[in-house]
């Protein structure tokens, strides 16, 4: 343990009038407070397991997790049958391991139940669904990409994006029985610069292509992003935010890269930024990112974070009847002179490299054929064509899809947020109803910004409060920028630990009742 953390813990313990610093001292203290302590001799359990199956002392510690499972099962009333099913799903085919674990877990359950019963018995199922997905954020995004038609994914290993790529590598061959549904090339490149460059190359050749990364990797990808913007390339970047700046706290979550994704790159170009607040949103966004990219021929950033990446959730299966694949205006042109950047339309018909057309691309300003051009008249038109896409996307992508209002339809108090703060804010909402009409405005798309709805909702509100895992609470500034309505109230957390429901309730009360402008959350310190 870091020395400063240790010191702080000691001080906390001392404040609580606990006599010493050992686990035993803490247990005694809790007992005095009337808390029932569940005690279990780990060594005894493991020893019995070792004797029963002649497991060597070196290997026995690997079974430790079974004790935790057994203890939770005992207190909540989870049946051994259910646990066996879980073990079979997880350790498929490893019969001995399943048997050992079941023996140990049963031992723990019997031991604890005989002394404590089942004080936290779980209620029966609350849903009629019979099938669920048990997935991390990394898994569900990989699934969304596969359903969405991903065919080339390039990456450089980085936390917390790496597991998405690992899962994709397991699914390179899409096969149902003898029928092939295709194959996905997943490639580890030498760095993130190459990852985005290769993804762009694959997109030019006609494959749905993506890369995934976090802040440090995205920093390296910015030149590629600009090239994609300049050349109207539909490439998708899945961006898992983690604590920055620089290496920061790689395994902790933040939302402090919002502005970075909105503005990364020199020059001006069109892009789309999507943000997912939970696993199911992330699935549909992963598909939609490709559709938007190809329909409008722009780079799309799918912005998520470490909290989502590594949280395992039990969710219903996505509804695939809702999902569409929209590839935009694609042609197999065999005209002798194909204009890749035809100025007739804002989004020019797209032919792939390898089709019957010949085309050129360049990061330099270019004419309609894709050749370098310094002509000021061409510059005027071509530059505008690229930027005007933002207006087109703004018209075509309904605002109702871009921002969602939860709670009161005519709120006096509006919380605004995006991404992983959705869960705790929605949990906190009913507890804030005593303060008046309250709502949560949840952003699903940050570029193009849904101005109309946001203005409508917040212009009538008394207080608008931004909530974000960052210092500045960038979403509040973004809302002000687009609506000209100041958002002075902010709830900020940047320790990298999750925001909790209680923290939100307390912070909002401080803002409303004590008229505080800014509350910094620290729970988990």
């Amino acid at each position, binding site marked *: 343990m870091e020395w400063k953390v240790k010191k702080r813990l000691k001080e906390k313990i001392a404040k609580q009038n606990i006599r010493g610093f050992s686990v035993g001292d803490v247990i005694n203290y809790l007992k005095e407070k009337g808390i029932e302590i569940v005690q279990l001799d780990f060594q005894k359990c493991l020893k019995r397991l070792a004797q029963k199956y002649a497991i060597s002392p070196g290997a026995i510690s690997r079974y430790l997790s079974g004790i935790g499972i057994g203890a939770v099962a005992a207190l909540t009333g989870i049946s051994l049958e259910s646990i066996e099913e879980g073990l079979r799903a997880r350790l498929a085919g490893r019969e001995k391991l399943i048997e050992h674990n079941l023996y140990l877990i049963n031992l723990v359950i019997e031991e604890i139940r005989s002394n404590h019963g089942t004080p936290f018995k779980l209620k029966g199922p609350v849903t009629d669904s019979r099938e669920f997905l048990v997935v991390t954020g990394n898994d569900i995004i990989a699934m969304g990409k596969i359903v969405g038609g991903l065919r080339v994914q390039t990456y450089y290993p980085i936390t917390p994006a790496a597991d998405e790529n690992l899962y994709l590598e397991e699914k*390179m061959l899409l096969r149902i029985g003898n029928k092939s549904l295709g194959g996905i090339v997943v490639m580890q490149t030498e760095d993130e610069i190459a990852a985005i*460059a290769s993804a762009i190359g694959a997109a030019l050749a006609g494959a749905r292509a993506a890369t995934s990364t976090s802040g440090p990797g995205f920093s390296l990808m910015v030149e590629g992003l600009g090239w994609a913007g300049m050349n109207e390339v539909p490439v998708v970047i899945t961006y898992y935010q983690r604590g920055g700046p620089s290496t920061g706290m790689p395994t902790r979550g933040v939302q402090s890269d919002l502005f970075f994704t909105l503005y990364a790159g020199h020059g001006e170009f069109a892009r789309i930024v999507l943000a997912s607040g939970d696993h199911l949103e992330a699935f549909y966004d992963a598909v939609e990112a490709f559709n938007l990219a190809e329909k409008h021929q722009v780079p799309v950033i799918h912005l998520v974070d470490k909290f989502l990446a590594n949280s395992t959730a039990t969710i219903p299966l996505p509804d695939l009847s809702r999902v569409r694949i*929209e590839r935009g205006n694609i042609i197999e042109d065999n005209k002798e002179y194909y204009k890749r950047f035809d100025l007739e339309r804002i989004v020019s018909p797209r032919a792939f490299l*390898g089709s019957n057309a010949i085309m050129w691309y360049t990061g330099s300003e270019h004419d309609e054929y894709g050749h370098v051009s310094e002509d000021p008249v061409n510059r005027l038109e071509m530059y505008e064509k690229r930027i005007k896409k933002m207006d087109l996307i703004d018209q075509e992508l309904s605002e109702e899809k871009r921002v969602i209002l939860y709670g009161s339809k005519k709120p006096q108090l509006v919380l605004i947020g995006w991404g992983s703060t959705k869960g705790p804010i929605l949990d906190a909402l009913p507890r804030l109803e005593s303060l008046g009409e309250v709502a949560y405005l949840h952003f699903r798309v940050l570029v193009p910004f849904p101005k109309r709805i946001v203005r409508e909702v917040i212009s009538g509100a008394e207080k608008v409060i931004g909530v974000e895992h960052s210092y500045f609470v960038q979403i509040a500034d973004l809302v002000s920028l687009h609506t000209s309505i100041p958002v002075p109230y902010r709830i900020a957390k940047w320790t990298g630990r999750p925001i909790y429901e209680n923290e939100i309730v307390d912070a909002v009360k401080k803002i409303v009742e004590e008229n505080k402008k800014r509350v910094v959350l620290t729970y988990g310190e």
Partner: protein
Amino acid sequence: MANKQHNWRTQVWIDWCPGCGNYGILNAEILALRELGLDPTKTVIVSGIGCSAKTPHFINANGVHTLHGRGIPFAMGIKLANPNLTVIVHGGDGDLLGIGMAHFVALGRRNLDITVILHNNGVYGLTKGQASPTLRKGLKTKALTKPNIQDAVNPVAVALATGYTFVARSYAFNTKHLKEIIKKAIQHKGSALIDVLQPCVTYNNIYTKEYYEERIYLLEEEPSWDPVVRKPDEEEVITKLSNAWIKSMEWEDRIPIGIFYQNPYVDTFEERIRNEIPDYFENPPAKQPINTEENLPIIDTNAFKTIFSEKIVKIKKTNKK
């Protein structure tokens, strides 16, 4: 569209300096493409940034003019998505061996079937003559304020060390020789490097046309020179690589051009992918259907349940109390 009538030149105004070695490279490449009878719609010329990077605009085939040093990774993505395309990368010595060296090395490791044409002139021409990674230490070309204090990279040796399976050198103004080398490099299955020695008439007053023409000799004229690995035998590979390495060290008095090394027995990256995806060449990622006629994903609910079965938990019916 592969026809002999195809005009491989575009109408784009060529803005290289008069006398630039790039003209020789462009001419040789166009001859090679024509003689190989390639289909310009299935050929992609990729480049980075610099004088050399303008090459794709002058060739009437697909052209992708990318970022400084990044020609190779763009080319890799194109090739991965559609391995049936012919992909050629152009880059200068600053582009490929300076800012893009990581990619240059990585291509060799992968043996992707891509041809790299290195425009090697010892200077950064486009930014007015700074020392490039191939300018030798102690030399002072005319735009330098002081002699170069960085050592030079030996591109042939780097390519040999990193796994390129075709490594050659040619000279920009020996069109016939360069054309033949380009043809062989394109026909070779695997990563190919052609180190093209090229005078920069504007900024390199040392490695001039005269300098090269006094020193260059043809490897193939040496009776004992055989750079090709003839059987998949480790010992032979080591011998051929070592011979090539020693040859690559020759510079001051005599400069060899020709094929330094060629090994047709290393599997390409595309073949390695085929081990995972058996119909990779017949049905490459760029050509696969991903949606039905109704624009639904080809992965329907049943396919979803099969592909992701390990993540799906089925709940048994319980008697609700």
